[in-house]
């Protein structure tokens, strides 16, 4: 028996582990629920997409607030990336956010994933990835961000990741705010300048599962600004949470 055969044999029958009989009825019930909810959410996807585009466009035209937005080089979302709600891709929930920013011919995208749509508090995860074609099987995951514990759907900021440079690619500061803020800002460490985030409305299946996925502008090839004092505001300009 060769080393490789031995390894295969060991992996085929790892000692101290015995597979159990899985409850396939439960599996199928959960699978049907996922199908139903994807269909239901898919029916509402087009309206959500239009609303989200208006939100992003409005920000570019009139950046309300105390600071300026560095929108240089930003291109409006093309609409090439489909909502993944009605796809059969494992785990993607809600719309896929297009940043309009490209690197190596791929667009940066942000989306939410879950292994169980009924347990978002426990397992909602935000992904920063890239795609060339916009098809689900062409999504590259670059950063996966989530909070520890079971409060991922509590009102407020979650899964916030500071911008960084990975393998020469500049990534934005991004995250999500559970709730419906009208604006999200941050202060640039050093200059003190206030910058405003791009927001895209995100929703799960339940009426209460609403959030804004946000990201801050960045310039490819340059280190991202270090941000602090992340703040959310409601429509009246009042600070949230």
């Amino acid at each position, binding site marked *: 028996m060769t080393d490789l055969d*031995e390894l295969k044999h060991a*992996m085929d029958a790892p000692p101290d582990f015995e597979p159990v009989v899985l409850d396939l009825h439960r*599996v199928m019930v959960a699978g049907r629920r996922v199908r139903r909810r994807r269909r239901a959410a898919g029916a509402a996807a087009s309206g959500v997409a239009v609303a989200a585009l208006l939100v992003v466009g409005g920000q570019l035209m009139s950046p309300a607030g105390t600071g300026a937005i560095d929108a240089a080089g930003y291109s409006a979302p093309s609409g090439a990336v489909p909502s993944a709600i009605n796809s*059969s891709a494992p785990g993607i929930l809600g719309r896929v956010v297009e940043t309009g920013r490209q690197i190596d011919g791929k667009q940066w995208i942000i989306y939410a994933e879950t292994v169980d749509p009924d347990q978002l508090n426990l397992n909602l995860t935000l992904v920063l990835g890239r795609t060339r074609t916009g098809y689900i099987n062409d999504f590259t995951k670059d*950063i996966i961000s989530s909070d520890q514990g079971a409060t991922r759907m509590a009102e407020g900021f979650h899964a916030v990741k500071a911008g960084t440079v990975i393998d020469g690619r500049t990534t934005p500061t991004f995250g999500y705010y559970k709730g419906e803020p009208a604006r999200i800002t941050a202060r640039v460490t050093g200059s003190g300048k206030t910058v405003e985030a791009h927001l895209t409305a995100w929703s799960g299946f339940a009426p209460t599962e609403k959030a804004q996925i946000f990201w801050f502008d960045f310039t490819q090839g340059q280190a991202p600004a270090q941000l602090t004092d992340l703040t959310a505001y409601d429509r009246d300009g009042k600070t949230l949470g």
Partner: protein
Amino acid sequence: MARGDEEFVEFAEASSARLQRAAYLLTGDPHQAEEAAQATLVRVYAAWGRIRHGDPYAYARTALANLVHDQWRRPMREYATEVMPEQQAPRDVADDVTRRRWLISALRRLSPQERTVIVLRHLFDASETDVARDLNLPLGTVKSLNSRALAKLRTSHLDMELGARR
């Protein structure tokens, strides 16, 4: 039961044990392995209408790999090597269970990426091209991870043999 559901049950029954073993090798935890295999089958069933005439096994393999994928992005978590064998007595080394246990322990000391490549490549018998597609990695990276991981496993194996002769 609808024909599609019957086919799914047949597929699930045939693949469940291997998925659980793969999940155990990837997570190092029997309970997590059961949950990961079950979550994988939920994803497979949710997509069954589209994949049943294609390669559902490959879809399941990819779904499982994706489920444990985010562990790579977090600070590296080494598994507790609770079953690391003591110094081997010569007669134990010949024992099949002991050898398998040693190999699994060595597998757990690989990086998460190396371990995933080894499991997909050598438990599922996926080609390097398929593994690259499953993990969204360049083919060269998969080849390199596979080769480095096998070298580490061979070194561990050699250490075991030498330890047994001392």
